């Protein structure tokens, strides 16, 4: 059963439960099965068909917890369960009527039996996969920032001045001891959206290792496919240029041209959305690699580098509010777009705000956003869905969770919001706190589904104990400015130092600056890979500023205090 997961090992049954099962087998469970009633929200209760409201057979009380004897079907309240087993020999086990949980009347304790839970879980028809329906629903949400070119240049000039000041202030540090691969990218006219994402991609450990180990050799590829444009080739060229050791800013002009060919609808001198660019680049790589790899897609997952690194699987459970049956859908994703958790200042919800220990409730946190993402969401009355059990359109509850984590987790904060009332888009400038180390366990399907069904012993598919859920941040793409015009800057974390990549200028910054920035996209990598990436580069000369070094764990402690 769930033996693979050590945290959910089955508790040893008490001797009364063992006795009961020896004598009666599963017949008691089976007989109770048809009285079980699944409610939405994942709870189960026992429905007393013949008697209406259940009452204690001894005192006729109806309040508190009531237990149904598994042998004689008599009902006792908590005070009389002991009396019942004393008067009727062997009637030790009962079922909590409201919760459908096993109870041993002699031990006065809850007991657990996988066979019982299997009977209960069979009431919730789970895991019926449906075809992908929510394919690209976020396209409308991804917003392209548009503006005229002239203003864009003016903006860049201002930025340029600012950055120059920064450079002159901080340039005392010797740049030659910066880690290899840190090279500025020239702005080719409102292309900071591209530069910011490229910097993140260039330093995503598994992605970088693939290209640096000649995973995609652009010379071989050109020879094979003639002069056809290939996005992967151009990325390979950028990689060689950036890791060449040359520190002078590089102009990824050919890459930009290649990307324009690939996504003609985005080819313009306008400012674009960094997130949209990210998706479109991964698409471009996927298309090319998919063709060259003779499609071994039959084996399930796409083997292209973009999807091997960034692709995860989302699970969405839609539960009918009337009959409680659930249908499950799996959707692949290359990133997770989360809403900014603004619930604690919306006027209607001030009383019921989510307050957690160690959390200042007036600050939005990334964990809060992820909680919001995986929360059960009631679908509005205009969004009724067809329930296959009821054969009718019904109100439903939807819950998202992460079925499989990617190697590199890209989290995108929906800072651009559409107001239905004013029919306009606006940007939310709210500050979002994010941790440098992230544990994704609570957002996995196994945890979410387990929480929904309370303390049942059953195996959730894909319940693997060996998956890595610890992530370390390595890049933050920030956005400053307004919806129409703004500037993207990337902060990169290499060997526990932070570097600000503002187009052509690379400077080392303190982590406080990163924490205070207005994050838009965050890139986390599995901790194992982050540590390995650290070791890979440790042969390079260390910068003299060792005092800036802080163990990650202590940073995070400070963050949560």
């Amino acid at each position, binding site marked *: 059963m769930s033996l693979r997961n050590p945290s959910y090992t089955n508790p040893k049954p008490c001797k009364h439960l063992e006795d009961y099962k020896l004598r009666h087998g599963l017949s008691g469970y089976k007989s109770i099965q048809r009285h079980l009633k699944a409610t939405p*929200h994942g709870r189960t209760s026992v429905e007393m068909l013949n*008697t*209406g*409201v259940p009452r204690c057979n001894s005192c*006729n009380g109806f309040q508190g917890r009531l237990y149904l004897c598994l042998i004689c079907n008599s009902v006792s309240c908590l005070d009389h369960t002991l009396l019942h087993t004393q008067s009727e020999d062997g009637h030790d086990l009962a079922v909590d009527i409201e919760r459908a949980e096993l109870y041993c009347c002699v031990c006065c*304790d809850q007991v657990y039996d996988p066979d019982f839970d299997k009977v209960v879980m069979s009431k919730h028809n789970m895991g019926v996969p449906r075809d992908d329906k929510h394919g690209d629903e976020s396209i409308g949400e991804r917003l392209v920032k548009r503006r005229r070119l002239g203003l864009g240049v003016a903006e860049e000039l201002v930025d340029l001045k600012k950055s120059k000041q920064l450079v002159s202030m901080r340039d005392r540090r010797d740049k030659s001891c910066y880690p290899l691969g840190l090279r500025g990218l020239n702005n080719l006219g409102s292309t900071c959206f591209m530069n910011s994402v490229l910097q993140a991609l260039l330093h995503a450990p598994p992605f970088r290792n693939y290209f640096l180990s000649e995973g995609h050799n652009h010379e071989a590829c050109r020879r094979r496919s003639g002069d056809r444009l290939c996005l992967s080739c151009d990325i390979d060229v950028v990689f060689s240029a950036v890791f060449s050791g040359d520190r002078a800013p590089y102009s990824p002009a050919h890459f930009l041209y290649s990307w324009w060919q690939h996504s003609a609808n985005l080819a313009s001198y306008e400012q674009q959305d960094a997130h949209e660019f990210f998706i479109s680049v991964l698409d471009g790589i996927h298309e090319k690699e998919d063709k060259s790899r003779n499609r071994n897609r039959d084996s399930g997952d796409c083997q292209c580098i973009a999807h091997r690194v960034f692709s995860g699987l989302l699970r969405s459970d839609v539960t009918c509010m009337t009959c409680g049956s659930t249908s499950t859908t799996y959707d692949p994703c290359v990133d997770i777009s989360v809403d900014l958790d603004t619930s604690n200042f919306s006027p209607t919800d001030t009383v019921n*705000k*989510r307050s*957690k*220990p160690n959390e200042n409730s007036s600050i939005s946190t990334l964990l809060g956003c992820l909680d919001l993402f995986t929360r059960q969401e009631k679908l509005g009355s205009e969004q009724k869905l067809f329930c296959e059990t009821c054969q009718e359109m019904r109100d439903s509850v939807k819950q998202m969770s992460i079925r499989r984590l990617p190697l590199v987790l890209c989290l995108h904060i929906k800072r651009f919001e559409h107001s239905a009332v004013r029919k306009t888009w606006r940007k939310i400038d709210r500050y979002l706190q994010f941790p440098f180390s992230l544990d994704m366990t609570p957002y996995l399907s196994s945890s979410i589904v387990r929480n929904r069904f309370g303390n049942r012993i059953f195996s959730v598919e894909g319940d693997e104990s060996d998956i890595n859920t610890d992530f370390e941040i390595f890049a933050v793409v920030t956005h400053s400015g307004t919806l129409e015009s703004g500037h993207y800057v990337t902060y990169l974390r290499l060997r526990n130092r932070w570097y600000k990549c503002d187009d052509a200028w690379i400077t080392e910054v303190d982590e406080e600056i990163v924490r205070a920035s207005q994050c838009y996209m965050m890139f986390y990598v599995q901790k194992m890979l982050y540590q390995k990436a650290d070791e890979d580069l440790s042969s390079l000369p260390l910068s003299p500023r060792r005092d800036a070094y802080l163990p990650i764990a202590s940073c995070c402690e400070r963050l949560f205090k």
Partner: protein
Amino acid sequence: MRPSVNRPPTPDVQENQEKEPTLQETINIKLIESGEKERLMELLRERLVECGWKDEMKAICRAFIKKKGRNNVTVDDLVHVITPKGRASVPDSIKAELLQRIRKFLVSAAL
């Protein structure tokens, strides 16, 4: 006289317990039959999670288990320990909201 409630007879009830249901019982039966009780309980659960009450109870349980040793605690012990604390620490706003809902239900059910 209170209006009698239409419910099927309980099978083996002893004679001395066969009496007029109290007002509380009547309301309880109505709440269950209409499904309102389930909705109320779901609302209550949601509110208690939102306000941190559930986390608080969890912390008390953890502390108790730690004190007694994990093999010497039964669910009943836990229920006894947290019931008084739990009852006392439900925020007044939540109580008021539920009371309001029950009132509304009673008004609509009486019609």
